[in-house]
């Protein structure tokens, strides 16, 4: 099953770094563009493409303020862990035929573990500043996270059924004939809900929500803020790549080389997510928890059952 060409750690780091770096930049540019469009502001392409860079430069030169008695170590750990987990999630996703950093046999377990470990980052992001609004925002996002984590487990297990393996490479292989998005139509929408939660954005922007004056990020400034925003974008890229591999057939596609198909599909999922992020109104944590357990989770049951019947 691990017939994939194994990358050495050094090129692996370079590959993941390049994908996440370029990907998160493109995500930031797309978000700037979509936001400007929704806002009805006519900004030139040049202004939109440099907007993320200008923003980063501004934050780099800014003081990193602190609060009266923060947990400084965990405050730094939150974005670091978040970015690291994005890299972990991406590392188990094959980016081309046989080109994965670590196409391990338990790919979807590691992918899911990265996703739930991100909850630790969310918790620490809200907890560390010792600030009431950040604390409330962190806790409500953890509630949402505990709800969506189950969805992704069901959806990924369903995708693993036809592949007879938990490895993501094998799941891509199993889609040579028919993509999972058609075979398991409920899977991708549910996984996109999870993606919104894992990136704490759009309808699930409960962690840094504007209704709590920035919530967990209310006390972040300068590089601290840049790191968190960057980690969020990076996680979006990693998750989009995972969704493209598991549901959109990964590298399968005519004419173009495999990696190009993978890049296109990842970009498509990421673009869709950015549009939802900009266009989605925040839902309250209490309502999301209720809906997630009583509507989305039964849908995930259904998805798994249907996938099971189809796979036999």
């Amino acid at each position, binding site marked *: 099953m691990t017939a994939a060409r*194994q990358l050495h750690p050094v090129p692996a780091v370079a590959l993941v770094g390049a994908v996440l770096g370029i990907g998160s930049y493109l995500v930031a540019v797309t978000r700037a563009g979509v936001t400007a469009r929704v806002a009805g502001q006519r900004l030139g392409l040049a202004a939109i493409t440099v907007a993320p860079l200008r923003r980063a430069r501004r934050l780099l030169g800014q003081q990193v303020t602190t609060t009266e008695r923060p947990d400084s170590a965990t405050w730094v750990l939150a974005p670091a862990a978040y970015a*690291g987990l994005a890299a972990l999630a991406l*590392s*188990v996703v094959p980016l081309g035929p046989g080109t994965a*950093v670590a196409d391990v046999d338990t790919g979807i377990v590691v992918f899911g573990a990265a996703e739930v470990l991100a909850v630790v980052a969310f918790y620490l992001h809200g907890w560390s500043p010792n600030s009431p609004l950040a604390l409330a925002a962190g806790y409500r996002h953890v509630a949402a996270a505990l709800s969506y984590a189950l969805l992704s487990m069901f959806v990924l297990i369903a995708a693993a059924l036809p592949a007879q393996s938990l490895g993501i490479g094998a799941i891509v292989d199993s889609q040579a004939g028919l993509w999972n998005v058609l075979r398991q139509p409920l899977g991708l929408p549910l996984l996109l809900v999870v993606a919104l939660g894992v990136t704490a954005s759009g309808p699930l922007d409960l962690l840094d929500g504007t209704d709590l004056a920035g919530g967990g990020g209310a006390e972040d400034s300068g590089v601290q803020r840049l790191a968190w925003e960057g980690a969020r974008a990076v996680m979006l890229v990693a998750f989009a790549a995972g969704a493209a591999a598991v549901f959109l057939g990964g590298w399968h596609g005519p004419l173009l080389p495999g990696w190009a198909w993978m890049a296109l599909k990842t970009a498509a999922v990421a673009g869709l997510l950015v549009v939802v992020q900009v266009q989605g109104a925040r839902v309250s944590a209490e309502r999301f928890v209720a809906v997630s357990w009583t509507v989305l989770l039964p849908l995930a049951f259904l998805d798994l059952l249907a996938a*099971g019947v189809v*796979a036999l």
Partner: protein
Amino acid sequence: MLSAFAAALAVTLVAAAAVAAAVVVARRRGPRPSTAPQRVPVLGGEQPPTHAWSRYHARYYPMALVFVAFEMEMMFMYPWAAAYVAEGGKALVEMGMFLAILSVGLVYAWREGAFRWQ
């Protein structure tokens, strides 16, 4: 297999270390340290009388407990998924039973209002 995990671990640690280093350097070598009024948590101008850290009343504690049990049960399903096609109809029945058990727990928890804010 091990080299794959080693590569994944390396990638994870490098990414985390890069971000952590950037933030730590910025905190250490930033323009200036925060002063007392600057350190007051953001509340829109007023000071908080107490620290925010407290025995925080997470309103969804029954949901968190149900989640732990649910999730533990789910961990059985991963290896089951890998063996599913090979085992055929038996596995389907097995899954039906499993989902039925989970559904009973889910319906019960919902009926008792475990998913509402307490």
